[in-house]
């Protein structure tokens, strides 16, 4: 079987290692260029089931800001990102929101929760 090379850039940390993955059909033969074990995990994931942490904002009523930043507590499948964004756009939270509050549980059935990234105090609380 012929071997094929795939070039990836690991996004696990700011170092951004350039990975060279040797494939034979679907099978990964060799991963080179990584500086740590996480590079191997990233390459395997990226080839079979690419995922990303998604960060965006959700609407808040009665808070010191009209939005609260939110994030997925672990990476979700890349093809579902825009579905998730549409889901988050539908909701409106009520202040106060606390850091770590679950904004959406088991988003899109991925098993991943969407959490608030910070506190948004209610408007009267803050003054």
């Amino acid at each position: 079987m012929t071997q094929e090379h795939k070039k990836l850039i690991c996004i696990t940390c700011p170092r951004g290692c350039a990975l060279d993955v040797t494939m034979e059909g679907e099978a990964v033969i060799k991963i080179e260029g990584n500086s740590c074990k996480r590079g191997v995990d990233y390459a395997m994931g990226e080839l079979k089931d690419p995922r990303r942490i998604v960060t965006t904002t959700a609407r808040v009523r009665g808070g010191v800001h009209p939005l609260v930043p939110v994030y997925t507590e672990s990476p979700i499948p890349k093809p579902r990102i825009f579905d998730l964004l549409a889901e988050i756009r539908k909701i409106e939270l009520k202040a106060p929101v606390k850091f770590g509050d679950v904004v959406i549980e088991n988003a899109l059935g991925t098993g991943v929760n969407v959490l608030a990234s910070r506190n948004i105090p209610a408007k009267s609380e803050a003054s």
Partner: protein
Amino acid sequence: MLKQKYDVIVIGAGPAGLAAAIEAKKTGAQDVLVIERAQELGGILQQCIHNGFGLQIFKKDLPGPAYAQRFIDELAGLHVDTLLDAMAINVTSERHVYATSRWSGFVEMDTRALVLAMGCRERTRAQIALPGTRPAGVYTAGTAQRFVNIEGFMPGKRFVILGSGDIGMIMARRLTFEGAKVERVLEIMPFLTGLTRNYVQCLLDYDIPLQLHHTVKRIIGNDRVEAIESVQIDEQRQPIPGTEETIPCDTLLLSVGLIPENELSRKAGVSLDPVTGGPFVDEKMQTSVPGIFAAGNVVHVYDLVDWVTQAGLLCGRNAAQYAITERKNHGRQVKMKAGDNVRYVVPHVLDKESLAESAQRLQMRVTLPIEEPVWVEVMNGEERVTRKAELYVRPGEMVNIDIPQSAYDAVQRASELSVRVVRR
């Protein structure tokens, strides 16, 4: 309630300022105040809603506000004073701080140690001299980031981003998430100026084209941006004629670099390095002015917030130690006063601990001659610390007296000593 005098005042409540304030308090500084321009703590992290923060320090991949929240929560438990929604408008080299806010009015305070943590500011259109008309729709990437992530509105629908810095690439993804079209990212240099991981997860993931060696030749549009004209650049950074392209868009974002914000540092007389744009600092993060420290992007522009936090911690620890030493020295010094028939005494102040090492000589001149035997007496109020006999004193002849080491305990009790010359 604000105090008249602090051990440590920190200007700026971003990651550097928060870390400095926390560490100063933990190191033993008694009163710590943070002055912040925004209405809340956290600085620019509050608008950096993307993840990637904290991998070095917490071994966790956190969004910016979550990273900030950890320090905000820690600060809240430490009884650190905060003055929010306030401008520090001047600081002197003697560490006198002037600030003003809607809530406090105009206030003045002294501090034993000062931490400069004002961060940095984005380069604007004016600083890169972009030709063309001056329509609405030209923003720095950070301004657009604040609009979208905190204030909740979109500055446009079709974007071109100039500069491949991290903020620019992150905004390209963010705007795409919010339904905008990012037509192009242009980079004048032959290489990416931000992190490679951001090129992958912000541009490649969403098919946003990046063109290296390209820049904006001019902005087109009268009331609002209608398009930009891009051009390719050669190795000498000169535009290559014939490579111009008109890219229709309604908004141009600039991600063209950051400059440390040092107006206050200058007012305090702090020397600045022309290369970094920030203060010259020693290994304690102390500037050229004793007692004035600096940390974070105000010193030089970092690419990871984790390192900013570490600089803040180091700076806060040393600022607290400086303040503690100042306070201790303050109690250790005794003032020397001229009493009856003494014009002046040198030295003017004496370190009480110096007597542990050796006797200390005082020198003085009398005001009037006394041509008969006298006592030269060193007094702590009514308590005599030591005395010496002289047969006469004259203004033209300097008088000496030594405070012996045996007077160590007596001197410890004094805050002021006076020297007098009286008849025996």
